């Protein structure tokens, strides 16, 4: 059918309507009176009318596309069609004053009747088909399995009855039981049943917003009045006079409309008292949905806090809303986002401490509703702060470790502005809020951590550059070193330099504490030692001055332990001072002994200088060929085995006794292998520095 051009269909339909009108004129003027010609002409005429209906159906199906339009537009169409019918029909009725003859088969008693019936008939055809399309939309709003079936059955029965009416003479209406035969009655009952079934399909009303419910109830009343007027005023005899089939269909559709409309009004009436609650529930559902979507994707902390206040304000319809967050374990709360708070109000916020009212939230662990702020003893100052604030809901947000993360406040300007539903609603929301906030927080801290790791990596590279890149070549001596930090940066340090007399010197040090601050002091220490060495030839003076400098610059609870050594290459002699550092080990190759040499000394930075200078001693060791010295940081002694035992001095002594022989590097490797054996690990994990000084054979 779609192959026939629509324009043609329109033209044909219009032409048919004219033909029917001309036929009516002919019949009216000629007055055949029950002759065969009259009957067959009438049959042709009735058939043509049905064709008009078919044509109009095709046009409407093609042109009247409404499926995607909103309900309100559809309702508006319905109202427009009915009103147009009423106005056109009503006006013409009173101007034309049609009169009909006969009981069942009506004929036109005057020409006005002919004219009027024709217009009414066409109007009815023009209205009924789009009306059915509209009704289909309402009924199909929420489809069930049987919806389609019932509606199709309904249309089917209408068509069936139309066919029957086409051939039969009586009665005039399907619902006219008095003159009805069995088939008519059966059809009528089926139709009534179907109409009632379809009338229950008004779920679309349930989901209307509250305001629309009121509006539609009012409009529905108008529709109902219009419908009843339509039949009495416009259609009753006229349609039947025009065509029994159209009369019948019009009759059925009218009944259908009036029953559906009444049901709808009743439903609305029932729903009106709960409209607000339904409205709220619907808003909750849509908010929750929107919320979950937005919250889950929002990792920006400040945007998230805004989102939370906005959503709370929307769902609770609060006039003032603000979110306060707490940093870690702080007892202060800070307004992070707000709606309708002034700057002064934020500054003077009486809810900024975890005491009083807020403390009660911490105990309750759920939203607290204040129906009348001014009547609440604990909230006297709140009334001063914001006089218009009358009712309040405060909702604590707890992390999954039961820590209070923050509180969201929502206020209204009238007392008893919130109800129990609002409380349970906020209770449900609070969890979502907390999870989202925690996620955003974790995200932020993971980014921060990544940045810090990067920084530390750089710090480590810088620190490694502060260490000597290679050990100096010293006649008669051989030096090697090992350096390891457990953290990215550490407080261990060693360096080589020349004293002012040109003799080679070295320093090993350990800044107390670990990590970044220790690393900074280490860098400072290097600078101090390097500078001082240029102006002195005495390790004693060097360390004494270093202590004076450091005492003033280092924090009270921090200190540095160090050994400063000086080598006399020709004499194979070694001098050192010990500032609180682990002892120097002298290993003799000839006697196979290891001696711990621990002259008195004090850590650097512990004393202003006088005591330090008094305690410190310069120690001199005369080395023999093949002897070696080991200096180290306390990490060496503190290395632990799987039984959690420390390596300790005794084990070190045992190890070093038999360590001599070979180069300094070989000795170093021997020591490290022994340490690895001790830990049973593939790697060492603590801060550890050692220097081996071998006196060549």
């Amino acid at each position: 059918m779609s192959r026939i051009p629509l324009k043609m269909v329109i033209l044909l339909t219009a032409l048919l309507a004219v033909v029917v009108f001309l036929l009516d004129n002919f019949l009216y003027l000629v007055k055949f009176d029950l002759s065969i010609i009259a009957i067959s002409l009438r049959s042709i005429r009735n058939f043509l009318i049905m064709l008009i209906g078919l044509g109009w159906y095709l046009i409407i199906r093609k042109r009247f596309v409404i499926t995607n339009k909103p309900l309100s537009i559809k309702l508006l169409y319905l109202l427009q069609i009915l009103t147009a019918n009423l106005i056109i029909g009503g006006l013409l009725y009173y101007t034309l004053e049609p009169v009909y003859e006969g009981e069942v088969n009506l004929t036109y008693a005057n020409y006005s009747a002919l004219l009027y019936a024709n217009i009414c008939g066409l109007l009815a055809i023009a209205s009924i088909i789009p009306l059915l399309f509209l009704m289909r939309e309402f009924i199909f709003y929420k489809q069930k399995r049987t919806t389609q079936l019932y509606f199709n059955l309904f249309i089917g029965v209408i068509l069936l009855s139309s066919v029957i009416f086409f051939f039969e003479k009586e009665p005039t209406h399907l619902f006219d039981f008095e003159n009805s035969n069995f088939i008519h009655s059966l059809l009528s009952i089926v139709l009534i049943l179907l109409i009632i079934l379809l009338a229950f399909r008004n779920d679309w009303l349930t989901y209307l917003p509250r305001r629309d419910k009121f509006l539609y109830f009012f409009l529905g009343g108008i529709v109902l009045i219009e419908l009843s007027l339509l039949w009495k005023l416009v259609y009753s005899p006229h349609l039947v006079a025009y065509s029994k089939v159209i009369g019948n269909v019009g009759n059925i559709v009218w009944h259908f409309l009036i029953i559906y409309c009444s049901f709808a009004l009743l439903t609305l009436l029932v729903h009106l008292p709960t409209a607000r609650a339904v409205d709220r529930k619907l808003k909750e559902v849509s908010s929750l949905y929107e919320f979950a979507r937005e919250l889950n994707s929002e990792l920006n902390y400040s945007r998230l806090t805004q989102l939370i206040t906005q959503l709370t304000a929307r769902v609770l319809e609060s006039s003032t809303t603000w979110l306060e967050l707490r940093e870690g374990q702080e007892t202060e709360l800070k307004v992070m986002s707000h709606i309708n708070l002034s700057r002064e109000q934020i500054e003077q916020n009486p809810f900024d401490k975890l005491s009083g009212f807020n403390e009660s939230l911490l105990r309750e662990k759920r939203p607290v509703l204040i129906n009348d702020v001014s009547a609440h003893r604990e909230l006297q100052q709140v009334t001063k702060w914001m006089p218009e604030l009358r009712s309040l809901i405060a909702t604590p947000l707890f992390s999954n470790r039961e820590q209070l993360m923050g509180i969201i406040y929502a206020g209204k300007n009238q007392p008893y502005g919130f109800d129990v539903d609002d409380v349970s609603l906020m209770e449900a929301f609070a969890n979502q809020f907390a999870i989202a906030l925690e996620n955003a927080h974790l995200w932020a801290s993971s980014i921060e951590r990544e940045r810090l790791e990067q920084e530390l990596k750089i710090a480590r590279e810088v620190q490694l550059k502060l260490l000597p890149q290679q050990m100096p070549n010293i006649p008669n001596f051989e030096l090697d070193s090992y350096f390891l930090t457990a953290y990215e940066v550490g407080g261990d340090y060693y360096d080589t330099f020349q004293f002012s007399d040109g003799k080679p010197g070295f320093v090993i040090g350990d800044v107390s504490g670990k990590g970044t601050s220790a690393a900074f002091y280490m860098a400072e220490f290097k600078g101090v030692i390097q500078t001082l060495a240029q102006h002195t030839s005495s390790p004693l003076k060097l360390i004494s001055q270093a202590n004076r400098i450091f005492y003033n610059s280092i924090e009270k609870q921090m200190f540095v332990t160090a050994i400063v050594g000086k080598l006399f290459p020709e004499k194979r002699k070694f001098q050192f001072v010990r500032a609180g550092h682990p002892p120097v080990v002298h290993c003799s190759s000839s006697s196979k002994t290891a001696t711990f040499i621990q002259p008195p000394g004090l850590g650097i930075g512990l004393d202003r200088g006088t005591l330090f200078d008094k305690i410190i001693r310069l120690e001199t060791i005369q080395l023999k060929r093949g002897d070696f010295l080991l200096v180290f940081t306390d990490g060496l002694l503190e290395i632990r085995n799987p039984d959690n035992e420390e390596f300790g001095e005794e084990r070190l002594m045992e190890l070093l006794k038999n360590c001599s022989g070979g180069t300094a590097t070989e000795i170093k490797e021997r020591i490290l292998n022994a340490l690895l054996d001790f830990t049973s690990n593939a790697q060492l994990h603590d801060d550890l520095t050692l220097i081996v000084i071998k006196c060549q054979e």
Partner: protein
Amino acid sequence: MSNFEISREDNKEITVLKLHGYLDAHTAREFEQSLANVIKEQRFKIVVSLENLKYISSAGLGVFMGFIEEVRKKGGDIKIAQPSPKVYKVFDLLGFPNLYEFYDQLETALKAFEKTQQPGK
């Protein structure tokens, strides 16, 4: 190594802090806090008993240094009692016996306060 505890006993004007377990970089803060609390109460005669201290790190040693100046200025002192040989060795290596008074017995440490009104070193 986080098993560290501090118990406190106030003996007239002397406060005894007893350290238990491991005093390292992590637990040093706890020790620092209790020392700060004692000083905040204007109590400057303090004995730190190390009878049950198993380990002390450089950060732990630093805590003593953080307060000694203030305490001595106020006419008090921090005295260290009953260190185990191993713990004493750490103090000794660093030269702490030059800065603090060490006692083998808690009683002698307490008595030392009564005997002298010494200003410290």
